[in-house]
């Protein structure tokens, strides 16, 4: 079986678990302290999240974004320039997931039906305008399966399926049940009636013109009419209009109250924009979200949360003010707390720090009942937190390294001294950037003159 055509990679479980002696199935901490929202690995996809750390921010999110009339909100980084890894992306993804799991039932106290989309622009040139962002939002919606939910909600809202929808039907089986014409027929539903109801809503939203199409109301054609194969030119020309007018109408027809756009790393866009593009972004934000003629501005359906760095705040400020946006959402100053979520470094509460470590440790423990911080000692955890400047991303990375070292050296426990040594080693290479001045003498001149 050594033929190259047959050779396959070993499955992870088949490789000897070198973390076993510490009581883990794997290294509990992410080796790359960055959030990859679509990864299957729970350590990096943001699903391990300690709400307690961000209680204040979550409250702000509820009060200033979800349950407030604000259409534009800001997430600002209090740690300012201190470094990455404070957990903004993890926070946004966590909020997105907690909204989407029950369509905002809990977070809005059952008042509204909500949906959240997470977008993160790249630094490419193609991510410089609002219509580019609109395209990214639309792509994310597809990826998240929003349109299947919309379709099923439309069918359900037709009032013809009331008898057959029960608790057994949920997101995971939509495609085989509600969205499946044959299944509906088996249940004795008049599929044609349902379809024409859905079709009607599509026409009202302006997604399609042809109300009489025979199969217009089934899921395949619904999907096709929303297929994300529109070209760049379409998005440049009509992207914003399409999303904030047509799609908005469709989502409204499916009885969503609001859709919250979580725009991460807005500075990546803003920093590379020229002055005209910045101005256009601000003007467009105002047009499409506040007082333009599209239906989103009228209904206030979409809300957008921009993650802003202090630096891009300065860049954006003059344009923001020129577009008159500061009256609706101020970028700084006294009223900014009304629409901003301020992101702070972690507190020094020992219990909280332990819990953050525990939640990761527990996820990979063989014995799931173990709630301790073993193999770490309390001093080790505290020291690691202190040396990571209270930034969770750096903290987790450090614990990752410590576990790796423990495996290499067969340490049963990891105490402060070991962390001290490791920290010094990992920082040796960065002496140019750290504040400590290297004062070892230069080598002596080799030649006697």
């Amino acid at each position, binding site marked *: 079986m050594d033929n190259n055509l047959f050779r396959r990679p070993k499955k992870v479980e088949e490789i000897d678990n070198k973390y076993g002696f510490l009581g883990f199935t794997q290294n509990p901490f992410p080796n790359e302290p960055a959030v990859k929202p679509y990864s299957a690995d729970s350590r990096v996809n943001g699903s391990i999240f300690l709400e307690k750390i961000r209680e204040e921010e979550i409250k702000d999110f509820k009060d200033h974004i979800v349950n407030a009339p604000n259409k534009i909100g800001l997430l600002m980084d209090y740690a300012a320039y201190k470094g990455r890894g404070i957990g903004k992306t993890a926070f946004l993804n966590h909020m997105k997931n907690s909204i989407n799991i029950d369509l905002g039932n809990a977070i809005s106290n059952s008042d509204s039906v909500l949906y959240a989309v997470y977008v993160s622009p790249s630094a490419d040139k193609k991510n410089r305008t609002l219509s580019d962002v609109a395209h990214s939002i639309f792509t994310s919606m597809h990826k998240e399966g929003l349109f299947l939910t919309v379709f099923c909600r439309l069918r359900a809202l037709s009032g013809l399926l009331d008898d057959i929808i029960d608790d057994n039907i949920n997101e995971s089986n939509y495609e085989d049940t509600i969205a499946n014409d044959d299944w509906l027929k088996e249940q004795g539903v008049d599929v044609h009636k349902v379809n024409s109801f859905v079709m009607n809503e599509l026409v009202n939203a302006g997604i399609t013109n042809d109300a009489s199409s025979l199969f217009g109301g089934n899921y395949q054609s619904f999907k096709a009419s929303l297929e994300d194969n529109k070209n760049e030119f379409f998005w440049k020309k009509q992207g914003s209009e399409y999303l904030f007018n047509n799609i908005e109408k469709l989502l409204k027809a499916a009885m969503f109250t609001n859709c919250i756009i979580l725009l991460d790393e807005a500075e990546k866009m803003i920093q590379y924009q020229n002055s005209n593009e910045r101005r256009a972004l601000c003007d467009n934000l105002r047009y499409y979200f506040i007082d333009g003629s599209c239906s989103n501005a009228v209904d206030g359906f979409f809300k957008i949360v921009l993650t802003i760095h202090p630096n891009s705040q300065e860049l954006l400020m003059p344009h923001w003010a020129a577009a008159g946006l500061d009256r609706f959402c101020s970028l700084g100053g006294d009223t900014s707390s009304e629409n901003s979520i301020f992101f702070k470094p972690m507190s020094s509460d020992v219990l909280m720090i332990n819990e953050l470590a525990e939640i990761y440790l527990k996820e990979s423990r063989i014995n799931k009942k173990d709630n301790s911080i073993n193999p770490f000692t309390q001093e080790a955890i505290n020291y690691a937190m202190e040396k990571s400047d209270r930034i969770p991303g750096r903290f987790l990375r450090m614990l990752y390294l410590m576990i790796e070292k423990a495996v290499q050296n067969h340490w049963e426990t990891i105490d402060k001294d070991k962390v001290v040594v490791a920290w010094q080693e990992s920082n040796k*290479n960065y*002496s*140019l950037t750290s*504040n400590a*001045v*290297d*004062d*070892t*003498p*230069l*080598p002596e*001149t*080799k*030649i*006697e*003159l």
Partner: protein
Amino acid sequence: MSNNKQAWPTPKLYGVGHFIEFNLYREALMIAKSKGYINKALLISEIPQRVKGLLLIDSISETVYADLIRELVHYGFIKREAKNDLYRIVDEGLCYLELCYNNEDEARDMLLNKMQNVFITPAWFVNRLWELNSTGQGQIVIPLPLKNWHPKLRKWSDNSWTDELGAVSKETIRLVKKKIAGSFPYDEDEWVKDISAEYHRLGSQSPRINNPEIPDDAVNYSQRNRLSLAMKTIAVKKFFSRYNPINGEMDFPNKRSDMTHRSFMVWCPRLENFNLICYTDNNPEVPGRLLYPISSFKFDCSSQDFLLKEFISDVNNRKLYVHNPKWNSVKDIFISTLLEVYQSYYNKQTIIYISLQDIRDEVCRLLRISPFLFEKFLNNTYEMSVRHEINYSISLETDIRLDMKVQINRRGVYLNGIMYSLIAIKPL
């Protein structure tokens, strides 16, 4: 040295012209030869177009032309006509001009001889370096504030000396003293006292601004810049005034104005061009200007590695010998030093391509060779690596890393006429 009762001869000229490019002498003499005369007006109209391509001359002020003519007169290259403001070239000048085209080394020697006679500075400067740090072979540092100190701007009127400034001044020289033993023979308390006085003096002048309508108290200043200027001024004054801080005597008992920081900045490159000293402002570990002699005064020297400059001697009549080793005698130590320095910089920066200028400066310091020799030896080493005579591959590149932008005015490293700025060395 303390029993030395003899003093240096009195200079014929005190103020040095604020230019460092020796080509200016040659060009001025060329004009004098072809036009029959020179004067300031003619030089102003002729010189700029002739030296356009030279990087080191960005702008030449009118005073420089006056200084240039004055120096040429003192060197005996030109003579002023009795009645008018015209200078004509004389035999000595013609001789120098001819050497410039036929034998650069001799031309340089001739110029050094003239400069020595007129200013006395070249020999005195080298000797002073040796006196200041006799154990460290003349290595001296004119410090600048620690590199990682970036204070806030302050109002011009706020001229107070803060604890922070004092701490930075102290920390800076402690670091310098640790980095190179003996490179800063200055008492710590005295230093802080002198610096604070100079800092005050600089702040009590009115700010130099173009718009007179801006009131003085609306002007901000950079604490770092002011402290830097104070440090340079004070250190140069201490180390290079006629009062010898080591033996407490006057090197020039008669009159001779002290060397200002500005003159110091002219003399460093001039003496480097003569291969008497080397200096660098960019040592990654030492804040400030590190300078050291690559020549020394000896009664006698039989080594082939030294070049005798017979026309230069110190007050004890010792002759000046310039370190000028032959490739064969330094080959091994040169290659091993190059590798060591590269490796130690690589270990600190963990970047494969290291600034060649940084490497050059450090190798020159360790081996006490001139940048010219470094280029020659590097070229030899490079060729050896191409022929696989050493087990290393050397790669030289011309590029500017982002963090090196500021170094564009620094002397480049040229191999066969091409400037290189980065080097990577890997074992084969």
